[in-house]
C-alpha cells in the first residue's frame, strides 16, 4: 500500500531527504559566507575613509637668497 516506503524505495526516499537537507545547508552557508565577507569589506572600506588623510605636500623652510627649484 505504502509504495514510497517499501524496502527498495525507502533507500531512495532517504537519499532524497538527505540531499535536500544538504542542499539547504549549503545554500544557507554560501549566503552567510557571501554576506559576511561583503560586510567585512564594507567595514574595512569605511575604516579607511574615516582615518585622517595623510599629508599630500610638505613645507620646507628656505633661507632668503637660496636657490629654489620650481
Amino acid at each position, binding site marked *: 500500500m505504502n509504495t514510497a516506503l517499501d524496502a527498495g524505495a*525507502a*533507500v*531512495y526516499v*532517504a*537519499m532524497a531527504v*538527505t*540531499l535536500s537537507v*544538504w*542542499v539547504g545547508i*549549503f545554500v544557507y*552557508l*554560501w549566503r*552567510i*559566507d557571501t554576506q*559576511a*565577507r561583503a*560586510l*567585512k569589506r564594507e*567595514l574595512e572600506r569605511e*575604516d579607511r575613509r574615516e582615518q585622517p588623510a595623510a599629508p599630500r605636500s610638505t613645507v620646507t623652510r628656505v633661507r632668503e637668497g637660496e636657490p629654489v627649484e620650481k
Partner: protein
Amino acid sequence: MAQRMAQAAKLLIGVWIAGVAVAMFLVVPQYEGLGNAGRIIMMHVPTAWVSVLAFSISALFSGLYLWRGQPKHDDYALASAESGFLFTVLATVTGAIFSQVVWGVYWNWDPRQTSIFILLLIYAAMFALRSSIEDVARRRQLSAVYSLFAFVTMPFLIFVAPRISDSTLHPNCAFLQGSKCEGVELGVGRLGLLGDRKVELVGLDRVGDVVTAKVEVTEPGMSSVTALSPTYDTANHKILERPNFPGLRFRLVVEDVNLATNSVRLNIEAPGTGLIDNGRTLFTFLASIVGFTALFFWMLNVRATLLNVEWALARREGSRV
C-alpha cells in the same frame, strides 16, 4: 584569483558531500545484520572525527590568544568550539538513531553515550561562561583558559572512557582492532567475560574440519543461562555459525581454534564490526571524512568572520557613544 579559487573550493565541498550522500545509499553495500541502518556510519564517524579536530583547533587558538592576546585568535577559538559542539550533537543524534536500530532504544546511558553527553555539557558550560561575563577582555581570557581545560578532558571522554568500560555496546572494533576486540581465549571448562556476559566453554566437538564450541552464556546478574554453539572451519580458517546472544543483535563467534591445547578464542561480533573491510565502504568512508573536514574549515572561517564583524561593529558603536 585567490577569491575565485576559494569560491571553486566551496562549490567542490558542496558537490563532494552530495556525492558522499549518494554513495552512502547507492554505492555502500548493506552490512550483514544491520541492513540499511549501517549506512549511517558514513555520517556518524566523520562527524565525531570532526568534533575532535574542532575542539583541538579551539584549544590551539585559545593558547595562541593567551600568548599573543589578539582578538582574532579568540574569534577562531570560539568559532571552532561552536562548530565542534554542533558536530558532536550530530554524532550523538546519528549514534542514537543507530542505537535505536541495533539496541532497540535511542538512549540507554551506554558508556559511550554518557561520555559524549558529559563532553557536550562541558562545552555548553563554556558558552554559558562566555555569555555571563560583560568585560570583553576578561571574557576572552577566562574562556581561553576554560577551553584549554575542556580540551584536556576531550581525549579521555572520547577515546579512553568508553574503551576501558566492560559494558559498552558501542562497536569499538568497527574501524580499529584493539581494546575489547581481542575476545577471550578459553580452554574446555574455563570461564571468561565477553562484554558484561560470563561465558563458559563446556566442550568442543570436531566433525572433519568443523569445530563446534559448546558455550554457556550467563546474563548479567546471573538471571539466565543460554547454551550457544558457534562453529569454525579449521581448514579454511572461516567462521561458520554465528549464534545471537539472547535478545540481542550481537553474535558469538569462534575466531580461532587451537587443537593442541583444546582451546578456542571466542568473541562478540557487534553489528558494525569489520565494516570497512569492504573496499567501496572504505572509499566512501574516507571521502566522507575529507568532505566533513573541509566543511568544518569553511564553517570555521565563516563563523570567525562573523564574530570579527560583530566585534568591529560593537567597537564602532562604542566609539561613537
